[in-house]
């Protein structure tokens, strides 16, 4: 358990809001890279592998960025 804690300590006290934004940015860059490489849309799993993250983190991160679809995003807040 101490080991788990120590492992996590690197990221200590960085707020999720910021870190997810960074991760989302990395994911979108990886997506572009993979599209150029393979000429097709990568899956979430492939993107996660490309940047060495868990796919559940990529899914969480997607919330942090304004997507190209934002044309349609509702504006309630």
């Amino acid at each position, binding site marked *: 358990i101490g080991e788990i804690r120590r492992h996590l300590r690197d990221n200590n006290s960085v707020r999720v809001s910021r870190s997810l934004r960074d991760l989302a940015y990395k994911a979108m860059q990886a997506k572009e890279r993979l599209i150029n490489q393979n000429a097709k849309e990568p899956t979430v*799993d492939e993107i996660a592998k490309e940047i060495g993250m868990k796919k559940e983190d990529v*899914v969480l991160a*997607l919330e942090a960025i304004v997507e190209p679809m934002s044309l*349609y995003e509702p504006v*309630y*807040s």
Partner: protein
Amino acid sequence: MKPINSMRLSFEGKSVNEAFARTAVAAFVTQLDPTIEELSDIRTAVSEAVTNCIVHGYRDRIGTVYITANILTDNRITIRIRDKGCGIADIEKAMEPMFTTAPNEERAGLGFAVMQSLMDKVRVTSKEGRGTTVVLTRRISCKEA
């Protein structure tokens, strides 16, 4: 068709929960290994449906929003979004692009149109005074080997 996996979700109809709802649905859909674009389509459609529950269904109070998601054998996902709010008198009219009962919002009247353009199927049932149910269906592309 019996689903191969399913989940249920309910939460208070507050706008802070919209992000939670679409991310939770996305997390469930992720087991089919979608592309970011597919995931983003689903999130947007879920958002529109949840927003409708909050803004229209429970227009003058905070009520509970219910979501059920099923994964079917042919890589299809169905998502049912339900409120127990005021209901819709004329569904056909409500679904017309640009029709809205809340004309002061920005980009009003396009919620159903957005859902229809992003999903394979959108089914709406409603009873005045009882509530509204929207069922979204979308097939996730299979990976080629």
